[in-house]
């Protein structure tokens, strides 16, 4: 065990080559600074975050190929703006997990609160439990795989990327949808404005198969899923549709 004195007090410890930040001792600022310090030159690849206890803003803005394990539940905006890192939360997460992610992989072992993957441009978000409302709101290219169910208004204004749900979807799925692809295995409580069920063609089976492979999911058959997409009636203004806006 050695101690790295980046500032006056230890921001983290290195245990068997793994950067370890214990949030019962160190601060969230210590954690994020230690991760950001890996940007120019990666000296420590693996990181453990202990005692997260629902703290907000954990592992936010990471831009290096780090492997980060958060051992417990996280608060809001965990892994936000992630680029390239592989971040696993061994617990539940609060609002906005992986919001605005650009690339990399974020995996939530528990449930996620609302707005998971909000506005994310790229990368892969896997939620092994359920996700709350507005999962994938305004998604811009991220792929999101939810092994449980998603809450209401999921994929609201989704522009690009894939939202795959192995459970059920809540009210107003895909409301005001652009070109994000939605796949749901279970029931859909209701579809939002301009979202319709679409034919599952070979290319969609292929897309879903590839997503399951990347996410390490082996217990799902893409052929069990239904596809939903935009009817493309709302996203250019037509005066005939004024009542629907």
């Amino acid at each position, binding site marked *: 065990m050695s101690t790295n004195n980046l500032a006056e007090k230890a921001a983290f410890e290195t245990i068997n080559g793994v950067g370890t930040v214990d949030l019962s001792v160190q601060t969230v600022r210590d954690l994020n600074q230690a991760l950001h310090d890996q940007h120019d030159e990666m000296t420590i690849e693996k990181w453990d975050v202990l005692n997260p*206890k*629902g*703290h*907000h803003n954990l592992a936010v803005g990471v831009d290096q190929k780090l492997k980060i394990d958060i051992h417990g*539940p996280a*608060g*809001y905006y965990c892994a936000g703006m992630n680029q390239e890192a592989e971040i696993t939360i061994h617990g*539940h997460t*609060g*609002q906005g997990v992986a919001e605005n992610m650009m690339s990399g992989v974020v995996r939530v072992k*528990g*449930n996620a*609160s*609302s707005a998971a993957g909000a506005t994310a441009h790229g990368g892969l978000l896997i939620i092994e439990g*359920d996700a*709350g*409302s507005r999962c994938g709101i305004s998604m811009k290219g991220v792929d999101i795989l939810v092994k449980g169910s998603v*809450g*209401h208004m999921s994929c609201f204004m989704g522009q690009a990327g894939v939202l795959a749900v192995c459970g059920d979807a*809540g009210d107003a799925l895909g409301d005001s949808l652009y070109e994000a692809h939605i796949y749901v295995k279970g029931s859909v409580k209701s579809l939002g404005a301009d979202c319709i069920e679409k034919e599952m063609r070979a290319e969609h089976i292929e897309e879903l198969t590839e997503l399951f492979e990347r996410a390490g999911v082996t217990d799902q058959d893409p052929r069990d899923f239904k596809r939903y997409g935009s009817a493309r009636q709302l996203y250019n203004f037509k005066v005939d549709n004024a009542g629907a806006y």
Partner: protein
Amino acid sequence: MCGIVGLYLKNDKYESELGKLFAPMLIAMTERGPDSAGFAVYGDAVEDGIKLTLRHEDENYDWAALAKDIEKALDTKVDWFQNSKVAVFKVGVDAEKVEDYLEQNHDDVLIMSSGKSIEILKEVGLPERIVDMFKLENMKGSHIVGHTRMATESAVTMAGSHPFSTGLDLCLVHNGSFSNHNRLRKELQREGIEFNTENDTEVAAGYLTYRLQQGDSLNEALENALKTLDGFYTLTIGTKDGFAVVRDPIACKPAVIAETDDYVAMASEYQALTTLPGIEDAKVWEPEPARIYVWERNGN
């Protein structure tokens, strides 16, 4: 913003530690509400008569004299104890009688709550200060709901703090804001409901009081509230036997619930739940929008 926390014990295992378990939950929500804090604790129930939480601005107010006055005037026995600016009075007659007597003879005394077991305690200041002031950690009981306030709709005052009493053994805490409270306040005033502040939550509390007076069950009153109250909100309602949680149909305001064999806990953020025993293995989830959740010991 604002923070809400609630803890309902399913059995008597932690009853003697209710305050001790709850104090860190309230303090954990300081960032969401540093202006004022309060809680409604349920326990130490009276069999006959009524329990009132009374408050007087003067910390040296002569509560003993007031107790004697009530005993003499209403020909009944009064048990009482003081807690900071507040005193809890247990009086052997029904609520209306004492409340009328106080209003007519001691209008400088504020009635914070009345019921069989409820005590509402709230003040301006950081949650930690309120916890210390009322010695929350020593409190026993079956359930408790609390609130930390970041004021948006009205001034930072004790009267504008939560919980708000909504009837016998009932109280309301709220995170969010209502957009139709001015008109609704006027409508309720016409129906005889009185308001003491410009606060929007007081209007929601008044609305629930009104619906319950009209004969609604708690569930019906909350169903009607979902139709009538416009705005965004998470509400927690303390009842004699437990508590209820309801979120608006859009569910913008956060809420998380944790359940074990021993308790149900709710909070605006998970952070407030991390100190509870067995939280690592609790079932944790978010309440759905526009759905009324009720946990009560007697199941009614």
